[in-house]
């Protein structure tokens, strides 16, 4: 082959593509004519059945193909039946679902205002039992019990707080308080009797 640059065009020309230049070249080029001859030879070789084609057990091949076709057809039918069953089941479930009572409708609630005053519920006061009715007792002055030492000490302490230190010596005469007013004719005199000791 001496025309490698023409080969692709010659092949396309032989394949039926219109190429006048390639046709002209092919007419005058012995190398390209030889290429066409070799291509024909190879085409004839390809057209012949390979010897292996005679070694095949064709009846067995046909039987196997028929069996496989039956198997696939059956599988297809089973799958189709399963699909139908699944669809029916789904449809029945959907129908059941539709018959259920409607769920409670949700009412949209407006959001609360920005400032919320929290109202604390008043704490209920525990029930108060009615005070027991007590008979008013007549005031009486029970005889004081003899003071214990501790009581005496406490009374002495109270006296020390109420009266000045010299009061220990004072008598029970009433205290006199004179208040002079702006009017020289008016003078307020406040007399207070001495309360005596707590034990009087």
């Amino acid at each position: 082959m001496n025309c490698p640059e023409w080969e692709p065009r010659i092949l396309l020309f032989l394949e039926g593509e219109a190429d006048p230049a390639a046709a002209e070249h092919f007419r005058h080029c012995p190398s390209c004519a030889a290429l066409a001859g070799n291509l024909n030879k190879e085409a004839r070789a390809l057209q012949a059945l390979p010897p292996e084609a005679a070694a095949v057990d064709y009846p067995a091949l046909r039987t196997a193909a028929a069996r496989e076709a039956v198997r696939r057809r059956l599988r297809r039918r089973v799958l189709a039946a399963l699909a139908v069953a699944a669809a029916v089941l789904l449809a029945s479930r959907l129908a059941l679902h539709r018959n259920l009572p409607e769920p409670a409708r949700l009412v949209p609630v407006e959001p609360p205002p920005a400032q919320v005053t929290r109202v604390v519920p008043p704490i209920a006061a525990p029930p108060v039992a009615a005070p027991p009715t007590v008979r008013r007792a007549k005031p009486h002055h029970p005889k004081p019990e003899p003071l214990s030492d501790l009581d005496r000490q406490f009374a002495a302490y109270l006296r020390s707080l109420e009266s000045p230190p010299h009061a220990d010596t004072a008598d029970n005469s009433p205290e006199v308080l004179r208040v002079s007013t702006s009017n020289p004719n008016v003078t307020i005199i406040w007399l207070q009797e001495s309360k005596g000791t707590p034990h009087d």
Partner: protein
Amino acid sequence: VAQPTAIMDPQTAPDISESDLVRLAQNGSRDALEQIIMRYERRIFALAFRLTGNMADAQDAAQETFVRLHLRIREIQAARGAGPWLRAVAVNACRDVGRRRRRSRLIPMPLAVADVPDTFPDPERRFSATETEARLQAGLATLAEKERAALLLREMEGLTTAEVARALGSSEVTVRSQICNARLKLRRFFGRGEAHR
């Protein structure tokens, strides 16, 4: 076109047209389907063998082609016959078998040469045929899958460019280019072999 009737028995009427056979098969005649398969089985196996390069894959692909014929007989246009449909399906089946083989990483079974019947009584012719076949297979193995399919459909089955394009689902321009590339590669492969002699 006259509608075939049930009284046409494919077994007893071997000269029945292929279109009628297809119609009968589409109407449920198993005998007609069998007849179609018998008409094409050798060609389909040969095509599959050239495409896959080994006996086991070729048998798988041929069987798959006929399984699909059983299942999809109604897809075939009766007027065109079963041939174009079967060839296209065979090419696809070979592709599927090849993919499955690659996925499973199985090593193709070696060809059982001893099983091949002796169709050439003359030893010299037999050697020549075996050698030619081996070289042809080696040359085809150098082609890309689509190039090989396009070339084989053209050369083995005698399809036009348009028919090959339809079978392969490609455009005519693509198919023409694939056929030319395949021829050129094959010629170079054989040219190298001739130069070494």
